């Protein structure tokens, strides 16, 4: 996993216990080519209990991510 501060990067944010699994709440990564989300993050998430939003639209762990994308991975919760 590479993380750089220069250039336009993809941004990944994690909510709730998904952030605990990843170990951070936010990371920015510079991607050379289009890459699958699953291959970028290299962490095993409980995929059937996650919501993936890419630029506010629903995606999944096979979605292709490019620099500039804003990705949010959050738990499926059920609100009291």
């Amino acid at each position: 996993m590479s993380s750089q501060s220069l250039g336009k990067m993809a941004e990944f944010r994690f909510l709730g216990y998904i952030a605990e699994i990843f170990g951070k709440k936010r990371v920015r990564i510079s991607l050379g080519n289009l890459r699958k989300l699953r291959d970028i993050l290299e962490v095993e998430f409980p995929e059937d209990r996650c919501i993936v939003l890419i630029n506010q639209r629903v995606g999944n762990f096979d979605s292709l991510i490019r620099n500039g994308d804003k990705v949010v991975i959050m738990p499926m919760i059920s609100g009291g």
Partner: protein
Amino acid sequence: MKSYAGKILRINLSDGRVSREEISEEMRKKFLGGRGFAAKILWDEVKGVDPLTDGNKIVFSTGPLSGLPLPSSGKMVIASKSPLTGGYGDGNIGSMAALHLRRAGYDVLIVEGKSESPCYIAIQDEKVEILDARDIWGMMTFEAQDNLEAKHGRNVGILLIGPAGENMVRFATVISQRGRAGGRPGMGAVMGSKNLKAVVVRGTGEIPVFDKGRLREMGREGYAEIKGKENYDFWVRQGTMQVFEWCNENSCLPTYNFREGSFRFSKQLDGYALEGVKVDRKGCPLCNMQCGNIIKDAENRDSELDYENVGMLGPNIGMDDLRKVGVLNRLADEYGLDTISMGSCLGFLMEASEKELIEARIEWGDFDACKKAIEDTVGKRGLGEIIFEGVRKASERVGGDSWDWAMHVKGLEVSAYNCHACPGMALSFGTSPIGAHHKDAWVISWEISTDRFSYSKEKVEKVIELQRLRGGWFESLTTCRLPWVEVDFGLHWYPKYLEAARGDGITQEEISELGDRIYTLIRSFWIRENRSWSREMDYPPSRWFEEPLNEGGLKGYTLDRARYDEMLSRYYEMRGWDEIGIPQKETLEGLGLGDVISVLGKNG
């Protein structure tokens, strides 16, 4: 059929009569318990009465799993004709009273009539007394709990009201164990109207079950499974407060009277902010995933927070300090007010003030003014005179365009989810059987994971599926749904628990039919008690259709009224209700509700 005490205890406060009735095998089969029993009793016995007169009844109802050694089973339902909505009202509450009532030999307590002076009911197994409550009338709920424990010991279950219930504030709740609350649609006001301060119950018997050993073993396995869930530790830290960040991210946070879906100061109020000030946890009996987060509030008192009350007493009124939110929440609990409706009423007043529809000024986030307004609500004076009957009545008083932003459905204030861009959740609120509450179908998570902007048939099906499970199955078992919905505890456990408890099983089809029967009966109650029933009663507030979000990632979004209407029509069709939402004859017959047919008019 085991796992029922088998009896209804009926107490008439007008003449002091106490009677006991058998619960028929048919009743157990068709309505299961909890909400199912309550809906059936209210349908049969409460017809055309003013909710705050002695003709109304209040039902305290347990289910066949209540109080057994199973995950989060310390629950009961409190139901009545609602003085806030005029329709069916109920709420579940976690309380030792659920366990004790069952151990005393009763599944259900019905209280009817009206006492001449303040009283409370004391039940110890067969012994039932109506006692003088003049010395505790006027007491805050925590103090009254202490007083009753001093009189009856701590090994009792207590359900009581505060000054809000006594004064018949229409969104007064019932409180137990210093902060457990239930009965949003004014169940506390109904108790107050009967001069009933409290119910104290102690049971020393054993709840009869079919296979005690198996039940205990499966209960142990269930508790262990919950503790082993990967998000359990996070749940212990934040509980439902994890929803705050999630809603803010998804533009679902109630903000400035639901104008917006995200709050600039959200980090000061979210689950991580909570972790910084949390001092303890608290919960219901028999629960190993307690959801009450205790903090020291701004007045250095304990306050029990969860997402709903922080959402409604935080961003919804522009309050950005968690400890101050804690004070408002604790005041509501002590007075016995529903925190969701109180937050909505305060937001309503602030917007009315901003638009100069009322003379008094109350600014967004004004802590001292909020405290005063809460006290005045209980006293029905000042600003409280405007809001003590909820926002629907308040908008009639205030006028202007306030009807569009009085945030309620059927008179019950919307709980803490903004639906500008959540049509499925809007439908959940629109068709909830008590008004705009989230307990019956919380579909947001699923809808955001699929396509939040769609008005699809699948979304309507999902709402009904959740209503069957949450509103029918769990409310009637009666156990808490949170193990399932929050840490993914297996749904497959519950039919097994029921079989071990009762001695007979239940199929998935029967669970669905049970939910449909209860929903259709409650809908029938609404129709019978509201002769001016219309399709518009299933609509969410106009604000979500007419006023776009101004901030956040979904700026510009609103609900589409025509497409919501299509969803609603589809919902009616799937439920077997007609074009204005009245159950059709064939539907009633199919659900074994033949006695309802003749009452509902043309369809019957």
